[in-house]
């Protein structure tokens, strides 16, 4: 009897499972469809696309659109492809992410473990940076970059992104360090460690999870930024996003959809890689054992 009951329960759960998986698979197809369209069409010659069927697999496979997008497509007036701009973006993103993450970690450390009179207010003001719309700061920022002699340079963009990122990186690290046992800091103080020694030797080694979160967040934001890039970059510091826009807009007669698709994938690739590589880096229980038995 109990066996029969179990059978029914199993059947019931199997039916719901089938429904759940069907729905999940439908959603997956829905979300993957754009990527599929981009990939297949970037591997077709142009006349196949103009023939109509966007969803069909290529009849003549070709990687020519990718080569064009990367090295010789017309970007604005120069037939350089996206390569130089990709490099510009790297030179902008890497320092901006590292500096803003490091400063955010220091801010979080000070705000939680060395809190001073008015530290709450300072944190509040830093948080405000998360809510200020980009457009508002464009003109003052342009003035400041001009005054600093950084207008139109990659360093200028690094500065802008570092400042803008600081609100978020500080928020992330402050909340993470708020849960970090203060007794560890006190123990280190009694052991004679100074401000930076405590940070480097005690807090930093336990910060991997939040550092990964912060780096993913900052990398995606800075890499994908268009507005600051288009506003503050000069000819030799244009980032990838702006270049992609230029690629799509500077057509010579025909719209080369296949090249545009390839370029768009190239522009999205680094953030995808960052997600795939570091998204898996999920550290748990690093703090286990520091406190309580």
């Amino acid at each position, binding site marked *: 009897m109990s066996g029969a009951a179990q059978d029914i329960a199993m059947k019931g759960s199997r039916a719901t499972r089938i429904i759940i998986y069907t729905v999940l698979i439908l959603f997956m197809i829905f979300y993957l469809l754009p990527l599929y369209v981009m990939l297949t069409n970037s591997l077709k010659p142009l006349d196949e696309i103009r023939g109509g069927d966007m969803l069909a697999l290529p009849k003549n496979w070709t990687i020519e659109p990718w080569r064009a997008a990367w090295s010789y497509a017309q970007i604005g007036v120069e037939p350089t492809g996206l390569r130089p701009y990709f490099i510009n973006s790297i030179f902008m993103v890497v320092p901006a992410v590292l500096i803003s993450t490091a400063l955010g970690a220091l801010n979080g450390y000070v705000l939680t473990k060395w809190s001073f009179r008015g530290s709450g207010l300072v944190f509040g003001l830093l948080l405000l940076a998360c809510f200020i719309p980009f457009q508002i700061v464009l003109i003052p920022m342009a003035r400041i970059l001009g005054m600093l002699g950084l207008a139109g340079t990659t360093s200028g963009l690094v500065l802008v992104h570092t400042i803008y990122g600081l609100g978020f990186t500080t928020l992330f690290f402050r909340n993470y360090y708020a849960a970090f046992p203060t007794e560890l800091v*006190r123990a280190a103080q009694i052991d004679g460690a100074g401000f930076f020694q405590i940070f480097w030797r005690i807090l930093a080694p336990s910060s991997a999870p939040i550092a990964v979160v912060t780096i993913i967040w900052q990398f995606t934001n800075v890499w994908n930024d268009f507005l600051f890039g288009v506003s503050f970059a000069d000819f030799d510091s244009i980032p990838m996003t702006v270049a992609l826009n230029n690629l799509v807009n500077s057509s010579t007669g025909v719209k080369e959809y296949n090249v545009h698709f390839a370029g768009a994938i190239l522009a999205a690739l680094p953030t995808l890689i960052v997600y795939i590589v570091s998204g898996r880096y999920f550290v748990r229980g690093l703090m286990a054992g520091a406190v309580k038995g």
Partner: protein
Amino acid sequence: MARLKIENLYKAYGATEVLKGIDLEIEDGGFLVLVGPSGCGKSTLLNCIAGLEDVTSGDVVIGERSVTELHPSKRDIAMVFQSYALYPNMTVEKNISFGMEIRGVGKSERRAAIEGVADMLQIRELLKRKPSQLSGGQRQRVAMGRALVRDPQVFLFDEPLSNLDAKLRVDMRTEIKRLHKRMGTTIVYVTHDQIEALTLATRIAVMKDGIVQQFGTPDQIYNDPVNMFVADFMGSPAMNLLPGTVVAENGGLMVSLDGHEGEMLLPLPDSDALRGRMGQKIIFGIRPEAFTDPEGADRTSTQLEKRDCFVEVVEPAGSDTFAVVKLGGKSAVARLRADARISPETVTSLAFNMGKAVFFDPDSGERLK
């Protein structure tokens, strides 16, 4: 090793005063326990001694040197934290040697110090492990090792046993006492557990609301409490505090309590303080072990008074039997021999050891002597 002196110490957070004029002194090699309910300021006081909190006013003196303005690392102290505060990213060995490394102690010297401490605490086989791989008791040992290796003037312990289970706590308590005997270093120890306080201390400071209520030897604190708070806080089961009235009877002073059938009279010592309370309410305090079966009572006491009492409940606890007696309108606990013949809901003769009884003013809680 050094004596520790705290002079008129105040600590306030904004308008909230947490410590209100603390004066304490512990001799070289002494074991001072700060005990009190949570929020009494004992941990704050310890942090002030350690230098982890700034004092508002007053002085902390270690040896002959005022350390009030010194950084924690310069005070020549070592501290064991309630949560152990082991650095999670370092091995046990690194945890123990971190302080020496920071102070620039040479490698071979560090090695020797680690080995010495590891042998003393029997943690040699744990040296390569991370804190997360240790049990509670092992973490406790490592935390003590980290303090010991420093060989400081004063050890500070902040509720070090409160995260351990009951049995381990008793073992570690003995171990701490043994270590203190062996090292002879001055110790300041914070706990809310009055048994820990009584077993470990050479001096106890009972604190409440940022004020030291009583500062004395464990014997003074237990047998000669200055007020009702100390009497009630120290001892388990707690002292019976029963309301009664002072009366004159047969030319002597007596305290009259509400017994099971009318009033029960017990003789009071003849003192001015009690005579001045004639006809007034007082609190009669007697510890459960001074209120027992006549066979189990202290035979050396000359002031045993046997009275018939109505036993409501009997609680055998293995080593003792506790009897709950209705007295003075309250439930009083008597501590009897384990094999005392006693049954609930009966009238039994119990002995009051009046030599151990204490009396308090019901309003102020102060002791009446």
